[in-house]
């Protein structure tokens, strides 16, 4: 990773480099839990989606959900990571009411997925690569409700036992921008794969962030772990705060204590949760209820063959096939839904080779611009892919001008309807009939003899004539034809 791609922090004693590693907990998209047949649907009445296994009844045994295994392998493939054909489930032992078994079934020494990498695209066309250390499967704990009763806490076991993928990065991230880009990219990959919905508000994706600071190129500093961040902005804020806090302590002659911290979103600061000495001894050991998880290379190959196109590949294809700029292509592929929308427009175009790039501009500038303005999501866009494709076809074939197209887009946005029919019924068609345009041109020249005389010396004032012609044709005159006619009539 080149140092040019990241930001250094200025301290009293000079520049500081921030070193960041992340553990992302991503809830696996599956109908049932990791080791029980109970449903994983979100928002059910408390304790209605609980099996005997989830409630840790005496004598109950876990049975691995193969769909969760497939999802983990798919994710590993999407991260260009090594897939381990043999992995082991371990018990992580600790007492807490959100953990009915008294242990979490996780993977410790032998995870299902090994090393991989994620490509980050940063502002100004910079890129960075973040290494993936590992991905393992584990059970989500239950949810504790502390504020329902004055003197008691309640437990909802619905989430208990839902499969999580813990994705551990290498300490390759160097500033808050990269950290945010990493989570954004990872979430995008997971969504493309359909292995996690990435919904941070519902807690489907949560991050633990390890932060330390050092002098550029110096030895690693002592790290602090900030637990359970559930928004990309909080991740950025927490890193900025924590790095500043550590720099201040060191510059004041103090030293950093390795500890676990929490981010207080209201105050925008981190505070200590527990020190290293208070850390749990989890007493990991292989879960004797489960055999090692083993599958064949052909199982992996089959999943690989059915993997959807991922953002990086899609971007490259958009650039190569339609001549999009790298930036535009990144904007389109950043979210799976946006890319799907764009592709669905492409699929409906009469001539995608000719108009593919124009379609990208329309999706990015007109559609996204309008959606952002109204705070709406691509999935509930009032203009659908078919309508937008029709508008672009109309421009491409020369039926309407770009300017008219914007009016048409507005009508479709407001009222809906078939763009082609609207063009007909509202007389928005571009006038390409030269005799009709000539009439208008002649009229304008006749009415403005002074200007017509001047234009020979000042060819840049041709634009004024074009504007007048377009105005009097209601914008429907073919601009190219207008231009040519004016030039020949005015003798320039």
């Amino acid at each position, binding site marked *: 990773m080149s140092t040019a791609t990241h930001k250094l922090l200025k301290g009293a004693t000079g520049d500081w480099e921030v070193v960041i590693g992340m553990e992302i907990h991503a809830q696996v998209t599956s109908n049932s839990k990791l080791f029980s047949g109970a449903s994983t649907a979100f928002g059910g009445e408390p304790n209605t989606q609980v099996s005997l296994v989830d409630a840790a009844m*005496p004598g109950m*045994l876990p049975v691995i959900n193969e769909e969760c295994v497939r999802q983990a392998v798919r994710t590993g493939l999407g991260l260009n990571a090594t897939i381990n054909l043999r992995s082991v489930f371990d*018990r992580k032992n600790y007492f807490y*009411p959100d953990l009915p078994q008294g242990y979490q079934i996780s993977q410790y020494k032998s995870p299902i997925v090994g090393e991989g990498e994620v490509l980050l695209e940063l502002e100004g066309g910079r890129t960075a690569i973040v290494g993936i250390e590992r991905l393992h499967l584990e059970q989500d704990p239950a949810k504790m409700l502390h504020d329902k009763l004055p003197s008691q806490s309640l437990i909802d076991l619905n989430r208990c036992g839902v499969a999580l993928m813990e994705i551990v990065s290498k300490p390759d991230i160097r500033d808050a921008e990269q950290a945010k880009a990493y989570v954004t990219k990872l979430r995008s990959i997971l969504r493309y794969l359909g292995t996690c919905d990435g919904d941070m508000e519902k807690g489907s994706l949560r991050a633990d962030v390890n932060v330390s600071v050092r002098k550029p190129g110096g030895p690693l500093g002592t790290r602090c772990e900030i637990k359970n961040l559930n928004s990309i902005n909080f991740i950025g804020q927490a890193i900025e705060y924590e790095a500043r806090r550590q720099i201040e302590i060191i510059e004041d002659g103090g030293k950093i204590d390795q500890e676990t911290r929490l981010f207080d979103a209201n105050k925008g600061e981190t505070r200590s949760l527990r020190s290293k000495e208070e850390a749990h001894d989890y007493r990991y*050991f292989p879960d*004797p209820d*489960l055999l090692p998880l083993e599958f064949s290379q052909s199982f992996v190959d089959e999943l690989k063959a059915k993997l959807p196109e991922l953002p990086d590949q899609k971007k490259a294809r958009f650039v190569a096939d339609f001549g999009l700029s790298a930036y535009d292509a990144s904007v389109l592929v950043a979210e799976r839904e946006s890319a799907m929308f764009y592709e669905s427009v492409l699929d409906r175009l009469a001539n995608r080779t000719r108009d593919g790039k124009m379609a990208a501009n329309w999706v990015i500038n007109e559609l996204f611009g309008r959606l952002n303005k109204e705070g709406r999501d691509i999935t509930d866009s009032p203009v659908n892919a078919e309508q937008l494709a029709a508008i672009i076809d109309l421009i491409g074939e020369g039926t309407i001008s770009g300017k008219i197209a914007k009016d048409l887009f507005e009508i479709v946005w407001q009222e809906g309807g078939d763009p082609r029919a609207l063009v007909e019924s509202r007389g928005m068609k571009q006038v390409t009939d030269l005799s009709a345009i000539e009439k208008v041109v002649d009229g304008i020249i006749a009415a403005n003899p002074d200007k017509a005389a001047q234009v020979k010396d000042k060819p840049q004032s041709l634009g004024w004539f074009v504007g007048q012609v377009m105005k009097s044709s209601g914008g429907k005159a073919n601009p190219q034809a207008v231009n040519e006619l004016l030039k020949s009539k005015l003798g320039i």
Partner: protein
Amino acid sequence: MTDLTSLTLAEARKGLADKTFTSLELTDAHLSAIEQARLLNAFVLETPDRARAMAREADAKLARGEAGPLAGIPLGIKDLFATKGVRTTACSKILGNFVPTYESTVTSQLWRDGAVMLGKLNNDEFAMGSANETSCFGPVGNPWRREGSNTTLVPGGSSGGSASAVAALLCMGATATDTGGSIRQPAAFTATVGIKPTYGRCSRWGIVAFASSLDQAGPIARSVRDAAMLLRSMAGHDPKDTTSADIAVPDYEAAIGKSVKGMKIGIPKEYRLDGMPAEIEKLWSEGAAWLRSAGAELVEVSLPHTKYALPAYYIVAPAEASSNLARYDGVRYGLRESAKNIIELYENTRASGFGAEVRRRVMIGTYVLSAGYYDAYYLRAQKVRTLIKKDFEDCFAKGVDAILTPATPSAAFGIGEKGGADPVEMYLNDIFTVTVNMAGLPGIAVPSGKDAQGLPLGLQLIGRPFEEETLFSLGEVIEQAAGRFTPARWW
């Protein structure tokens, strides 16, 4: 009809088929025997109404000719097996009056085959013990006494209730579990037959876990044939237990009476302990002689890592137990002591809910898994386990079909006699049996004789994985030679 309780299971099956008596009569005979034997404390819960209802159902099926292989046979169930709608406690105060909403796979297979449940049997708390003295319901009496003595002896453990009830003719057979010898040692102490099948032969689903990698269910019965009949119903693959083996269950009974001619039987030299009672030595030689005269070939074999088995077992088993028992926390079911906060809730509940031996093993297990100790204890014990397994594999690779050993280093002892000052004294009871659990092999204990004080002694046969049939064939040879033993009734 009082002598209905003295039939073997095979004899009862014939009587029921021939309509000599009904299941209800057979069940009532056992219910009344149970009532008269409360002094033994073998049953912790009697379920007479349920038993009679099941017996009537069995009679109806017998009449219609739809009877399963165990139709109408009254059994006792170790309290470690979850029984739907019937209190299941593992004989621990911490489970209190826990009533499962589910039935263990093993017992549900017995009911599927027509068996009748008489009630739940006493055991060491969470199956941790070798004398059935750690049960929260108090100790179980062995139906056997030393000649001329009134001292009540232990029936062994942890399946002490199962062994005592079968020996005292309170049930025709019983379910049991074996983690380090908990089926075979009580069987040997009570002159009953007990088999711990290969790990994975029976489903562990619905059995309260002690040490998951060692626990296996099996029957305690009045004869080798009876044990074969029961195991056939209990065994089988269960998708709910991923450690259960997807291997077809053979007709074990067909192995009874099959010739053992030409079989190679190993006598492991490392099982000859210093200070072993002479009568155990003698019994062992006798057993070898019986097998030889039935046509088997006896060979000396070596299992060099035997001496490490017991210490390694007492690391692996408590380690798993410390984790398995974490779920008994007072939060969702069972005992809950009052407390000011969650930590106190755990501490108070677990301190008062678990007995001394369970607490000791939870602490040992927690210790050996702790950071800094894991490699020295747990990891090393697992390595020993691999070596023990390899000892047996090497032996079987040389053509040995089964290994003959004593089942226990002594006969039954008095309640409170052992382990009071030093728990290791009690742990030594399992010296011949733990290796089998560590290696996941099948082992059967068959009554083989009596010691000088008239107490029963047993021999153990250890087989290749999933070759329980060989053990039944060989076990029956010993049974035929040694005869069967019934205690004189004193209760």
